[in-house]
């Protein structure tokens, strides 16, 4: 084996194992920043000292152990004096951390799971949870995360520093939550994963490729969660939901970059393998017991994915699923989705009644999709003046370019002379 091969092998270990190594070092050292430094040190030592015939038989364990020793040396050297509390009279001198506690190198997968729960701790702001998860679990660079979320790099760096600082100073624990709060804490982990996905999937502004990466990272994260917590049906359901949505990615925009509705998409271009996996996972999640909210949403996505065309979609069942979702955790956006499905089953007038009720409450006043959905029903009912007004409102609120073009296209279709009730209006 040549020197190049050794370097390639180290690069491969970094790619495949650096997250596991980091997770274990964080447990051993109890500090994110120290662990990051220790891991970089360990890989630097490997690059310098490994030769073809001296590659350790268990490189991961070697790197963890080297990183830990480096960190301990470092800590001894610059015994970074913690800021003193001059308002208290010290009772005992500060203890050095028990070295024995650092010896346990078992349970690598547990380390990753602990890390997930620490990064998604509810005492951190959600945007910090997202950034920390992408940085620590997924291994994205600060620059990549900043670009994906369209914030300046220093802002993102500051967010990460603050988050690791809070974990250290506020004593956010590094462990899997106890049984009585596990499900609640899992919810906040899944919320972070889904947020990463929707950020990558829904928005069509910004750097398209980076955003696609976000959706992929979210799917990868969900796979990790399913692997680490096979009992967590909602994690499996979320994975299914994302796989089914993501399977349609290639068909969401026309060649000109225009947004295409579900009914306009070329279903032959949907990713069949991904849909098959998604359907199987939805099935498993639904069989496993009481369906959670991701399982219900995944079931809706499954009905869309399984329909041979838009007309043959089982809208009645979709309406029923949204009604079930509403009975669990009512939100105005789910109410809107329910209204859209009802319009497909019971006609535009029935859907419009529900949407008017949502609009009257005002929570979604700024949500362009409410206005464009209303406009669509008004158009179908032949109420073109009202439809036009609603499209105009939607256009005023839509921020993303393809969505704006879609709304303009709709508006111009109503303006066309064959609209029966078209009349000049001041």
């Amino acid at each position: 084996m040549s020197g190049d091969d050794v370097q390639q092998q180290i690069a491969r270990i970094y790619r495949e194992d650096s997250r596991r190594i980091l997770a274990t070092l964080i447990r051993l050292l109890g500090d994110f920043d120290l662990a990051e430094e220790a891991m970089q040190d360990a890989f630097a030592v490997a690059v310098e000292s490994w030769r073809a015939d001296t590659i350790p038989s268990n490189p991961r364990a070697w790197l963890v152990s080297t990183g830990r020793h480096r960190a301990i040396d470092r800590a001894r050297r610059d015994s970074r004096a913690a800021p003193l509390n001059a308002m208290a009279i010290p009772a005992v001198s500060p203890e050095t951390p028990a070295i024995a506690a650092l010896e346990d190198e078992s349970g690598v997968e547990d380390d990753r799971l602990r890390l997930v729960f620490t990064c998604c701790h509810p005492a951190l702001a959600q945007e910090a949870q997202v950034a920390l998860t992408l940085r620590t679990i997924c291994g994205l660079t600060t620059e990549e995360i900043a670009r994906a979320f369209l914030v300046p790099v220093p802002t993102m760096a500051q967010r990460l520093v603050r988050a690791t600082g809070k974990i250290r100073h506020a004593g956010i624990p590094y462990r899997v939550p106890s049984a009585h709060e596990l499900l609640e804490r899992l919810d906040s982990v899944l919320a972070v994963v889904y947020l990463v996905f929707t950020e990558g999937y829904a928005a069509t502004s910004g750097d398209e490729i980076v955003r696609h990466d976000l959706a992929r990272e979210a799917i990868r994260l969900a796979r990790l969660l399913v692997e680490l917590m096979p009992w967590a049906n909602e994690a499996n359901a979320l994975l299914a939901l994302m796989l089914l949505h993501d399977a349609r990615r290639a068909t969401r925009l026309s060649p000109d970059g225009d947004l295409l509705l579900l009914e306009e998409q070329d279903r032959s271009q949907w990713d069949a393998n991904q849909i098959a996996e998604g359907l199987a996972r939805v099935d498993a999640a639904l069989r496993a017991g009481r369906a959670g909210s991701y399982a219900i949403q995944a079931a809706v996505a499954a009905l869309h994915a399984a329909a041979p065309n838009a007309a043959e979609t089982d809208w009645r069942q979709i309406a029923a699923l949204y009604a079930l979702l509403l009975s669990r955790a009512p939100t105005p956006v789910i109410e809107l989705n329910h209204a859209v499905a009802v319009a497909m089953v019971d006609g535009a007038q029935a859907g419009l009644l529900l949407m008017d009720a949502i609009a009257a409450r005002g929570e979604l006043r700024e949500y362009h999709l409410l206005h464009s959905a209303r406009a669509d029903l008004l158009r179908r009912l032949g109420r073109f003046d009202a439809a036009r007004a609603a499209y105009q409102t939607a256009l005023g609120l839509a921020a993303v370019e393809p969505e704006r073009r879609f709304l303009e296209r709709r508006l111009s279709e109503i303006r066309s002379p064959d609209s029966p009730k078209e009349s000049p209006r001041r």
Partner: protein
Amino acid sequence: MQYLLLIYENEQNWATATASDAGAMMTEYRSFTESIAKSGHYKGGNALQPTNTATTVRVRNGKRATTDGPFAETREQLGGYYLVDAKDLDEAIGIAERIPGSRSGSIEVRPIMATGA
């Protein structure tokens, strides 16, 4: 009578102080602490970690909500405090949510600065 002396200041002053200025301030605090200990007034005292380490806990309709950051309402006023030993933030939050005031007000959980030797 016992009195609680609350210290309000702009924490940015500490964050931006030079090492020697901060050191001088620490020394002054330490000698003040010693002087009121000697005179028999001292019952306890602590420097707090800055507000960006704070977590606010509220219980509404039996459900706990935690938010990152300090308590920031002007409609509510400081009404009391507990100093507790907890093994980590989760345990501290668990205690905070049991404080009766968490159901109508807010409990700010703020770590105490480590005691220096």
